């Protein structure tokens, strides 16, 4: 305001316009169009000016005057006043150099262009020019305004502009293009096909800036074109963490819908939970297909989505948290659902409106899954300061959460609420008590008594509500409660609320046989007051009369006839109808015929008790978190969540071409990047910052991704010849190198788990990095560097246009390589961040011979000292399922690790197999097929000639797992059938226990330091602190020998790997309340896996 008044001073001095000093005086002469603003507050005293003044100001030469005029016009628009007649004067300034003036003109244009289409066309050429401006901000804003002008004539121009902007180098402009798509679609739906093409192109965009907007456009224009998502699914999942928060919400909702069409339900009873998903992630296609024959294994892409959305539960944006929660609700296996609880409860601290929506969703969830929110019951306690709708929702949730265990607490809480000053809330509480009483039979009587006490409450609404609820309760067991009915009859005179009166009358009628003396008396009273009652009460009086007539006609015949006569002439047609109907039914005469014989059976039929159920029952037919869910009715534009498909559609559609094992590798590396990119940013020189996400992407991802990028870039970079030729080169290169790369990718994966451990010991890690650089970096460097340099070019042209920023050429070759290594390393870390369940090694990661030798070259070779093998300390009894009887057509097989040295070979793990025949025919010739699909050395058991029905047999076999947790796949055959089965060893089973002295242990441990050591500090649960429990937990996880320890609080275990005999040393040092687990082994992969398992074992409570 200060600005404005100062301004008015300035133009006063210039004298070009008359001052607005005496506003009131001018007001009298103002034409009608503006005088509508007469009521404006003093702030808008400038509004009193004639539009003529504004026009003059706009036409003056002074920028400041024009600006002032525009500011006032915007003020008018904001107040909702009509300023359309200024259109010609305003539109002239559209090409102004002053940015603020220009922006204000834009605001005006967008507001009025629709009304003044012809004049609006005058401005179009300005925008077309601006679309070519070197400044990306100007290009973007030109497109924004151009697309916001809702003038059908310019649709072709808009279309052209959008197409062009979609290939713009600036991601910001592309984002604007994505927004423009929706605008054009709403202006002219006929353009749909063309727009879908643009959407398809933009969906391929890898900028986090664009992702949210284009998905929004997708949702609005073509939500049914699920096929467009396939190829981008993994990319979207991986980008998600970096997308701005609003985009996250939209993408998450879209992906929820997508996932429901593409994956099979994880909710099946016999679901084998996702232990295998990690492994499956690395599977090549063939192996995955094998998996499908198993009961249920989550699609790795499904898992990817769940995993990548989980960190977003910590977002500060409530909409994001809600979106993730609904995604988990609709997509995750039931046992994983509990992670959303805390986050949802956290949202309850937020604003009132947020609480309202979140509580609604919790109410729906809590009906189906009490357990989720029960521990947080107290968070739903009502405060007297809560808004009424919040209170009722909390009540609803408390009711849903009530069970036998907590009902007493809840009822005590309810007692406080009943006394609330907010009577509507008190009434709702009474209903809630009623609900609890019906749901939990133990407390029915207590509740009923409590409610009866409330009947003497002073407040009428409370009493009325109690009556209604008691009526419902009594219906379940009327015979025991005739005294309550009598009590209510006594109260009848004092109750005036119609609903309550009607309820009592109904009770009387229904159970008149239980209160034979009182009922006729009540009817007598009612006959007197019939005419003064509310309609609802009158209907019940008629009912009562009819029922009494049938049961006790001697006393009530006359009364009934009197009431029926009154009813006959009532003003309300409902009552007249009812009366006529009842009369025909109960009073026998010639006309009534057969029906009246059954009158008693009709009227006195036993009625089922009403089910008191939550308003949120069945609300989950709507996707949670949506507007439709909130309203409990379908909002326009609501997209139904489809049911899970019975059979998963082809998974390979999501594979992005040019690779096989590539996709998983890439999806692994990406989420890591997301967080780690800050580091890389800060390490780079400032000038590099504008590179933006584009270069981040290309540099961080593996080489085949750069090919993808180059494809999309090819479309876009017509002008940028050097870049397109480069990308062509890179794609051709990568084609020829395809094979090599797949190989390389495999290697990369193998490296990951190893070097992840090494990361913790930075000193040693350097060595490995340099090696991996020379191995993988060199192969990919050609394509790598080209992609890098291309993205450099991107940024160059961006910043080049931005004139201020000068670009300096950088050494292209060296940087990306280093960066690549960094990223890789980082992604390794993530592997264990992500896996909640004990993770098994990737299937395809058999350490390839040369890598193995490479690794060993780096290691200090262990001296095989006097290690004595010992017998296992603990042999787990649990057996694992190998073949379910359903899949095995009646043949079921279970296996168990015996933890004994294998008699078949020194490097084999001994297994015990139990085969049972569950059919009613004998099975013949059960054996393991000769061909083993994964190449492990398997010692087969001798073929079993014949297995009788319902019989079982135990055989033993040996498998050489080659010290990796890769599954052993083989065929279990009967005479007729072949079943492929697989054994997944836990890492602890690949060990044999040994004993050694404590001194030897420390000596060996001293040799296995550096990257051979992996350690972790955990918080140990109290019950695990004792030495017994530590020992028990560790040996149950892994087949290790216990080393007698001289120090308290340090526990040592030793073992060797079965195949190669490498030493594995585990020590657990307790420092209350923490425990430090250290594992020393040259088998670093196993070491890290073992560490994780020991960690979980020691942090979990229970046996």
């Amino acid at each position, binding site marked *: *305001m*200060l*600005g404005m008044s*100062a*301004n008015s001073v*300035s133009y006063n001095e210039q004298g070009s316009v008359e001052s607005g000093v005496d506003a009131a005086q001018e007001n009298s002469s103002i034409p009608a169009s503006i005088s509508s603003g007469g009521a404006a507050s003093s*702030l808008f005293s400038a509004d009193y000016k004639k539009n003529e003044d504004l026009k003059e100001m706009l036409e003056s030469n002074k920028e*400041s005057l024009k600006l002032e005029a525009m500011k006032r016009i*915007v003020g008018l628009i*904001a107040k*909702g006043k009509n300023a359309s007649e200024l259109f010609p004067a305003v539109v002239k300034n559209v090409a102004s150099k002053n940015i*603020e003036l220009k*922006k204000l003109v*834009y*605001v005006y244009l967008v*507001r009025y262009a*629709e009304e003044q289409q012809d004049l609006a066309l005058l401005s179009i050429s300005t925008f077309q020019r601006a679309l070519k401006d070197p400044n990306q901000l100007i290009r*973007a804003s030109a497109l924004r305004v151009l*697309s916001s002008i809702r003038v059908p004539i310019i649709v072709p121009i808009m279309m052209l502009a959008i197409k062009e902007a979609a290939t713009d180098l*600036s991601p*910001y402009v592309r984002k604007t293009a994505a*927004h423009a798509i929706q605008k054009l679609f709403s202006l002219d739906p006929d353009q749909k096909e063309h727009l879908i093409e643009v959407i398809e192109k933009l969906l391929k965009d890898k900028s*986090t*800036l664009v992702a949210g907007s284009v998905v929004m456009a997708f949702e609005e224009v073509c939500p049914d074109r699920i096929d467009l998502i396939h190829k981008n699914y993994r990319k979207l999942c991986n980008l998600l963490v970096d997308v701005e*928060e*609003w985009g996250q919400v939209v993408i998450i909702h879209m992906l929820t819908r997508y996932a429901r069409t593409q994956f099979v339900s994880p909710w099946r009873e016999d679901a084998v939970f996702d232990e295998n998903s990690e492994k499956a992630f690395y599977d090549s296609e063939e192996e995955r297909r094998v998996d499908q024959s198993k009961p249920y294994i989550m699609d790795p892409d499904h898992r990817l989505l769940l995993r990548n959305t989980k*960190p977003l539960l910590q*977002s*500060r944006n*409530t*909409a994001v*948290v809600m979106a993730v929660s609904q995604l988990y609700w609709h997509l995750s296996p039931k046992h994983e659902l509990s992670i959303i609880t*805390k986050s949802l409860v*956290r949202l309850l*601290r937020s604003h009132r*409106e947020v609480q309202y*929506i979140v509580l609604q969703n919790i109410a729906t969830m809590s009906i189906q899954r009490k357990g989720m929110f029960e521990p947080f019951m*107290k968070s739903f306690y009502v*405060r*007297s*300061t809560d*808004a009424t709708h919040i209170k009722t929702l909390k009540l609803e949730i408390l009711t849903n959460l009530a069970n036998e265990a907590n009902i007493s607490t809840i009822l005590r*809480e309810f007692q406080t609420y009943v*006394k609330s*000053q907010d009577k509507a809330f008190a009434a709702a509480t009474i209903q809630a008590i009623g609900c609890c009483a019906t749901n939990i039979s133990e407390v029915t009587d207590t509740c009923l008594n409590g409610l009866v006490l409330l009947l003497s409450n002073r*407040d009428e609404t409370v009493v009325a509500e109690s009556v209604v609820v008691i009526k419902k309760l009594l219906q379940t067991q009327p015979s025991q409660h005739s005294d309550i009915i009598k009590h209510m009859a006594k109260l009848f005179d004092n109750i005036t609320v119609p609903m309550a009166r009607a309820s009592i009358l109904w009770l009387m009628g229904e159970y008149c046989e239980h209160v034979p003396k009182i009922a006729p008396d009540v009817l007598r009273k009612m006959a007197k007051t019939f005419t003064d009652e509310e309609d609802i009460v009158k209907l019940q009086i008629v009912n009562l009369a009819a029922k009494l007539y049938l049961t006790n006609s001697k006393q009530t015949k006359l009364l009934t006839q009197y009431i029926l006569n009154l009813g006959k002439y009532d003003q309300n047609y409902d009552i007249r109808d009812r009366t006529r109907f009842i009369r025909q039914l109960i009073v026998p005469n010639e006309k009534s015929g057969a029906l009246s014989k059954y009158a008693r059976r009709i009227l006195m039929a036993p009625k089922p008790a009403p089910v008191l159920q939550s308003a949120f029952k069945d609300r989950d037919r709507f996707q949670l*978190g949506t507007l439709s869910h909130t*309203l409990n009715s379908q909002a*326009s*534009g609501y997209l139904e969540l489809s049911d899970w498909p019975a059979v998963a559609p082809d998974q390979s559609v999501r594979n992005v071409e040019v690779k096989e094992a590539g996709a998983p590798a890439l999806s692994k590396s990406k989420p890591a990047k997301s967080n780690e*990119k*800050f*580091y890389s*940013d*800060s390490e780079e020189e400032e000038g590099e*910052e504008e590179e933006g996400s584009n270069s981040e992407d290309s540099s961080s991802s593996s080489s085949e991704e750069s090919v993808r990028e180059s494809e999309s870039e090819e479309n876009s970079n017509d002008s940028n010849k050097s870049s397109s030729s480069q990308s062509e080169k890179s794609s051709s290169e990568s084609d020829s190198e395809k094979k090599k790369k797949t190989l390389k990718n495999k290697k990369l994966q193998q490296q990951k788990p190893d070097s992840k451990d090494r990361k913790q010991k930075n000193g040693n890690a350097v060595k490995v990095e340099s090696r991996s650089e020379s191995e993988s970096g060199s192969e990919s460097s050609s394509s790598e560097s080209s992609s890098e340099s291309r993205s450099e070019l991107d940024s160059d042209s*961006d910043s080049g246009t931005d004139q201020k920023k000068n670009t300096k050429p950088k050494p292209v070759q060296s940087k990306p390589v280093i960066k690549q290594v960094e990223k890789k390393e980082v992604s390794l*870390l*993530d592997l264990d*961040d992500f896996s909640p369940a004990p993770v098994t090694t990737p299937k395809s990661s058999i350490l390839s011979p040369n890598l193995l030798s490479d690794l060993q070259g780096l290691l200090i070779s262990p001296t095989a000292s006097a290690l004595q093998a010992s017998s296992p300390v603990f042999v787990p009894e649990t057996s694992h399922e190998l073949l379910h009887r359903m899949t095995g057509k009646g043949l079921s097989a279970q296996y168990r690790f015996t933890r004994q040295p294998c008699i078949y070979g020194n490097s084999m793990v001994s297994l015990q197999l139990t085969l049972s025949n569950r059919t009613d025919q004998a099975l013949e010739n059960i054996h393991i097929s000769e061909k083993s699909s994964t190449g492990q050395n398997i010692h087969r058991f001798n073929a079993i000639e014949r297995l009788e029905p319902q019989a079982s047999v135990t055989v033993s076999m040996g498998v050489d797992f080659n010290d990796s947790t890769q599954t052993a796949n083989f065929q279990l055959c009967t005479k007729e059938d072949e079943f492929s089965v697989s054994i997944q060893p836990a890492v602890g089973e690949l060990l044999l226990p040994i004993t050694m002295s404590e001194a030897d242990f420390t000596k060996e441990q001293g040799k296995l330091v550096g990257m051979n050591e992996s350690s972790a500090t955990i918080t140990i649960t109290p019950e695990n602190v004792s030495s017994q429990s530590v020992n028990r937990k560790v040996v149950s996880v892994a087949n290790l020998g216990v080393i007698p320890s001289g120090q308290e609080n340090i526990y040592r275990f030793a073992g060797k790997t079965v195949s190669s005999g490498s030493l594995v040393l585990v020590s657990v040092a307790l420092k209350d309340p923490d425990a430090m687990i250290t594992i020393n082994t040259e088998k670093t992969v196993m070491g890290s896996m073992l560490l994780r398992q020991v960690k979980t074992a020691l942090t979990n409570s229970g046996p």
Partner: protein
Amino acid sequence: MIHSVFLISNAGDLFLEKHWKSVISRSICDYFFEAREKAVEPDNVPPVIRTPHHYLINIYREKIFFVSVIQTEVPPLFVIEFLHRVAETFQDYFGECSETTIKDNVVIVYELLEEMLDNGFPLATESNILKELIRPPTILRSMVNTITGSSNVGETLPTGQLSTIPWRRAGVKYTNNEAYFDVVEEIDAILDKSGTTVFAEIQGVIDACVKLSGMPDLTLSFMNPRLLDDVSFHPCVRYKRWESERVISFIPPDGNFQLMSYHISAQNLVAIPVYVKQNISFFETGSSGRLDITVGPKQTMGKTLECLVVTVHMPKVVLSANLSATQGTYNYDPVTKILVWDIGKLNPQKLPNLKGSLSLQSGAPKPEENPSLNIDLKIQQLAISGLKVNRLDVYGEKYKPFKGVKYVSKAGKFQVRT
């Protein structure tokens, strides 16, 4: 998504409208006014209102209703969160978000709204970016602008908009580099008549004011991170590091921001700093009642309680209160029926007491329930949960910043049932 936004004052004055798609007549707000009337209290207005062709999603903040018009399905929280973000932006720009400031700065408000949404979809909501696009008003700048005709509008695209760190602008320079953190904890509790805790939890936030040059990378660690039950972070915090190491590692936004919020729900950890002895009774005859409240310290960890305020929402029938306070002042507003007793600092030697009689509307039945008391208090230099910041490290920049941590505990929704 969001079609239009209307700002409506508590008095029902529609003082600003903004449309992002075609114009929707302001008569749509009649549905809102209808609901507003039905709700009586502004807090009771349902956040989502259905009209025949549109949906109105509204928030109530600082005595202003922000009413947005929606035409198709959209997650309601999306809109609600956005509207709150708008209100916060106004607060950030103008110091407060009130009808007057919005009217005073209507042009900037309009420019802001224009940047924040494009076609109803949020475009730039990060305060750092907005401030580069549209500079916040200062007295000096408005003077300069008037004279030179220069504008408040930035001419280039903010660098943050394109970078992977959208919350921080590039090229920040300070002569004094400083980083201050406020650990603010609020105790939410419900105590019952006898003083036992029905429910208690701690809600904490860490507010930061970071004025550091360049691109600093900060790491904040706690002495006892395991206290934190559930956390949510500003987008700048690297979640992975928190998961693995329990340290907060981030590149901070420039200026004031909320770094994280957390939640401690374990009841045994929540110390209740105050106890209240109260006796409120209404007599059956004579239309009067008696009130007697004493407040005393409970678990204060040796600190003094400050800014102690007791608020009582009296039943409707209470006409007036004739009380005497041994410390502080009391005020009874017969219109809103709210009794406020402002005690100030609590002296453990001489406990404050408020005593006296209440007069009721004659003839009306005595109230069923005694009103519950809401307590407000503040304890300086104490995080009631015992949370302690261990250290703050700055990486990536050479200078040595001033660092400081302040702890404050407050009563949040602290209610004593009577």
